[in-house]
C-alpha cells in the first residue's frame, strides 16, 4: 500500500500548520501528528492506527522548513512497515528523534541566522529609498529558498526514507548557512554605509564624517557581545542622541545670539 499523491499533497498543506499548537512540553509534537494523520489513515486502521498515532503525538521539535523532509521520510518508513518491509536497525520513531535536533540546528543557522538578515538587508536598501515595493522584495527574496526546501525536501524525504539524510549531507547545508551569514554581514555593511551616506547628503554635511560611524558601531557590537539587551541599547542610544540634539540646538542658539556663525 502506498500513500496516494493527493494524500501527500494534503499532508504537505497540513505541515504549514505544524506549529498551531506549539507548547513548552511537546513543542511541535501535536502538529507533527496532525500533519501525518492523513497518511497514517491510509496505512492503518482501528487499534493499530491509534497506537501509531500515540507514538507521533509525543515530543517533536525541528526547524519548520525542514519538518517536511522528516515527515516525508517518516511516511516512507511507515509505508514500508505497513507493507511488512521492516528495517531492524531503525524504527520510524527513532529516525524522527535522531534527525530532528540536527535538522533544527541546520535550519536555525541557515534561515533564521543567515537568510532572514540577508533578505532584510536587501529589502531595506529599497525601503530606505522610499520604494514601496520593498516589502514585496523581502517576501520574494526570503521565500524562494524555504519554499524549495518545503517542497523538494518533502518529496526527497518520501522517496528516499532514511537515505534522505544523505541528501542533506550531499548539499552541505551547514556550509550554506555560514556563507549566507557572511553574505548577510556584507550586505548589512553596505546598507549601513548607504544609510549613513544618504543621511549626510540630506543634511548637507561632509561625506567623510560617515566613516566615523564605525567607531560607535564597533562599540555597540562589543557591548552587544557582552549580552546587553537590545531594549537597553536602543534607549541608551536614543537618549544620548536626544540630549545631544538639544545641546546642539542650544549651542547654535547661543552662538547666533553672540553673533558667531
Amino acid at each position: 500500500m502506498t500513500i496516494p499523491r493527493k494524500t501527500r499533497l494534503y499532508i504537505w498543506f497540513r505541515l504549514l500548520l505544524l506549529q498551531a499548537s506549539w507548547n513548552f512540553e511537546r513543542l511541535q509534537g501535536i502538529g507533527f501528528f496532525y500533519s501525518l494523520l492523513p497518511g497514517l489513515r491510509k496505512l492503518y486502521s482501528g487499534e493499530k492506527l491509534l497506537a501509531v498515532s500515540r507514538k507521533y503525538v509525543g515530543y517533536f521539535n525541528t526547524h519548520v522548513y525542514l519538518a517536511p523532509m522528516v515527515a516525508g521520510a517518516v511516511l516512507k518508513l511507515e509505508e514500508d512497515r505497513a507493507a511488512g518491509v521492516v528495517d531492524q536497525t531503525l524504527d520510524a520513531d527513532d529516525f524522527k528523534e535522531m534527525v530532528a535536533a540536527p535538522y533544527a540546528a541546520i535550519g536555525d543557522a541557515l534561515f533564521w541566522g543567515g537568510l532572514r538578515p540577508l533578505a532584510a538587508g536587501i529589502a531595506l536598501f529599497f525601503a530606505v529609498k522610499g520604494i514601496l515595493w520593498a516589502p514585496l522584495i523581502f517576501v520574494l527574496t526570503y521565500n524562494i529558498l524555504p519554499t524549495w526546501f518545503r517542497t523538494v525536501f518533502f518529496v526527497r524525504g518520501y522517496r528516499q526514507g532514511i537515505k534522505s539524510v544523505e541528501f542533506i549531507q550531499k548539499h552541505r547545508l551547514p556550509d550554506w548557512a555560514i556563507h549566507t551569514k557572511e553574505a548577510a554581514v556584507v550586505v548589512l555593511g553596505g546598507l549601513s554605509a548607504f544609510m549613513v551616506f544618504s543621511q549626510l547628503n540630506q543634511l548637507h554635511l561632509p561625506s567623510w564624517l560617515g566613516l566615523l560611524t564605525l567607531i560607535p558601531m564597533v562599540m555597540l557590537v562589543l557591548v552587544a557581545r557582552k549580552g546587553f539587551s537590545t531594549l537597553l541599547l536602543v534607549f541608551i542610544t536614543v537618549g544620548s542622541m536626544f540630549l545631544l540634539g538639544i545641546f546642539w540646538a542650544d549651542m547654535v542658539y547661543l552662538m547666533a545670539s553672540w553673533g558667531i556663525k
Partner: protein
Amino acid sequence: MVLSLSIGALLSLICGLDRVAILQVMISRPIVAAPLVAMFLGEPLVGLQIGVMVELLWLARLPVGAAVPPDDTQVAIASSVLAIIMGKALNASGPELLLLCLLVAIPLGKVGQYFDHYARQYNVRLIKKVDSALDRGSLLGAEFQHLRGLSSFSLAAIGTYAIVLFGGLLIVPFLWPLLQQPLSYSSAWIQLALPLVGIAVILGTINVSRALTLFCASFCMAFLLMWLV
C-alpha cells in the same frame, strides 16, 4: 478611528499567526507588516519608515527551541496605526510623531513576549485533551485540539496589539506637546540610529568568524564607492 483600529486588529491577527502558528512566510516581519497595515490605512510611507526602524532591532533574537523573541510584529503594526491615528488627532506629521509613537510602542511591546509565553503555556493543556481524545479513539477530536491552539496564538497577537495601541493612545497625547520641539533636533539621527543598533546587535550575536572585520571592510568599500561615484 474605529475602522482604523479594526483594520489594524485584523492584520495584527493575520501577521501574528504567521509569526509562529501558520505558514511562516514572513509577512509578520516589520518591514512587511507595518507598510501593509499603513497601506490599508492610506499612508504606506508611514509604515515603511516604521518598518525600516523596527526590522533589524530584534532580528538577532532567533526563535530557537523554546526561546520566545520580543513581538516586533505587533510593535510595528501598532505603532503604524498609532502614528496614523495620532497624526490626524493632533494634526501633526513628520518623523517626530513617528518616532514618539515607536519609542512608546517598543517598551509596551515587551508585554507581547509575556502574552506569547502564556499562549504556549496555555497550549500545554491541549496535550491532555489530545491524549484523552486518542484514548477515546477519537482522531477527529485530537485533530480539533491541535487547531484550537490557533486561538491562543490569536489572542496573544490581539492582546499585544491592544496593549501597545491603547497604551500609546494614552501616553502619546501627553508627551507630544513636551517632546515635539526637542525631538525635532535629533529625529533624523535617531531614525538612522535605530537600524544601526539592530545591525550592531546582529553583528554581536551572529556566529561568523571575523564578522566585525567583514562588516567594516564592506562598510568602507560601499562608502568609498558612493563617495567617488
